[in-house]
């Protein structure tokens, strides 16, 4: 059972959640499933969540849809207000990066492979899903995607991924079947790069 925690009933913590938890969660999950099944496809989570900073609406919605008291959750630079919001809305406990199943991070680079669980050969599913916000899905340098879920190849242009992103993806893929799965968010939208996707500079 989850440890009993003091419940923060300040208005910020109780606001910004799903108006219709059952159907909102299903719709957001459907968007993420669509994104991860078809890497490169942008799916919209809608305006279902209004989380405190630094979470974007899509990040908030994804955490509401997937996290709960049984999930190890890591949010980089989470303050008390965000922790209270997550606690009230999901019951999820914030953990260290090394214990995260779902992690919201500022960026995906080589260091992420040392910080978050990568799974084991016997249980590659015991790995983290990283959620990273980017400023744009179409203003960055072109990247070519291939692998499961991609018909032939696909091109994406997310901005703000930072130096070394492609190299980090290459290193991540070399860990197969282990590795991190990546969800890029931009406002209310999500694009997935599961570990199985090959990312190259186009």
């Amino acid at each position: 059972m989850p440890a009993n925690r003091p419940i923060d009933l300040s208005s910020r913590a109780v606001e910004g959640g799903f108006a219709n938890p059952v159907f909102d969660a299903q719709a957001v999950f459907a968007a993420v499933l669509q994104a991860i099944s078809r890497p490169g496809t942008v799916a919209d989570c809608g305006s279902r969540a209004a989380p405190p900073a630094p979470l974007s609406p899509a990040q908030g919605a994804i955490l509401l849809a997937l996290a709960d008291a049984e999930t190890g959750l890591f949010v980089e630079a989470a303050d008390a207000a965000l922790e209270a919001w997550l606690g009230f809305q999901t019951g999820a406990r914030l953990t260290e990066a090394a214990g995260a199943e779902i992690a919201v991070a500022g960026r995906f680079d080589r260091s992420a492979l040392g910080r978050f669980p990568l799974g084991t050969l016997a249980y590659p599913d015991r790995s983290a899903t990283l959620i990273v916000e980017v400023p744009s899905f179409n203003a960055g340098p072109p990247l070519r995607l291939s692998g499961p879920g991609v018909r032939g190849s696909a091109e994406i242009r997310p901005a703000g991924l930072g130096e070394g992103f492609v190299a980090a993806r290459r290193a991540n893929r070399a860990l197969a079947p282990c590795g991190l799965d990546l969800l890029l968010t931009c406002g209310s939208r999500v694009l997935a790069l599961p570990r199985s996707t090959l990312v190259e500079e186009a």
Partner: protein
Amino acid sequence: MTSTTAYNFAYLDEQTKRMIRRAILKAVAIPGYQVPFASREMPMPYGWGTGGVQVTAAIIGPDDVLKVIDQGSDDTTNAVSIRAFFARVANVAVTTKTGEATIVQTRHRIPEAPLSEGQTMVYQVPIPEPLRFLEPRETETRIMHALEEYGLMHVKLYEDIAQHGHIATTYAYPVKVEGRYVMDPSPIPKFDNPKMDDSPALQLFGAGREQRIYAIPPYTSVESLDFEDHPFAVQRFSQPCGLCGATGVYLDEIVTDDRGGRLHACSDTDYCEERRAAGHFGADGAPVPAEARP
């Protein structure tokens, strides 16, 4: 227990759905790998589709259109029962037409009509571990998958060839997904295996009793295991469907009398009906009058 009417949407509680949804996302990210999940007891017996039902319940939304088949047919009792379950607890539209469905839950078949990008197949799986009948221990088979050690499977298939002249596995024929995991395609006839390869549809597999979920994303390589000198081949029937005249489809053999009489008819009843409605008919069927066609 006061009320029996207040079911959650799609029966499962939200916490259970989240747990299954997290497992599904992992499964899609690691094609062919069996993700353990804390399967719940469902109001139907283990072995009767509890894994498929849990996967469907976790993904289905109010706008989905559900088709349920068992042995290719929408009218077999267990398909009827599962379809009625979802119509009751999720109030979703149900259909028997493959083309109209967004989710097709199936036991033992893949529809004959090609699937499309907007569709998700949900397979009911009894024994998800393809190596289980070669090695009954989970602790051992997990190591084999981890080390990609599939020699045992090849030995088994080769022993078939040595004994029978060809591979004697006719259903639940093992496949390799994206060149990595050997996977059980569920007990579909090997006739259906090629439909899994490079499919535009998302394919999800649920094994309730064995607590496993696995997946094949769209456009993913699915190869049936074989040998250079004994390439994989599917069953082919020498005659067309007796009702609709279709060829290149999987047929049921129906005993029509006790004097050796047999009728061979499409196992996919929707496919057969659509063909007959379009005016096709076979040796044992009568043409549908033009005025009765849609």
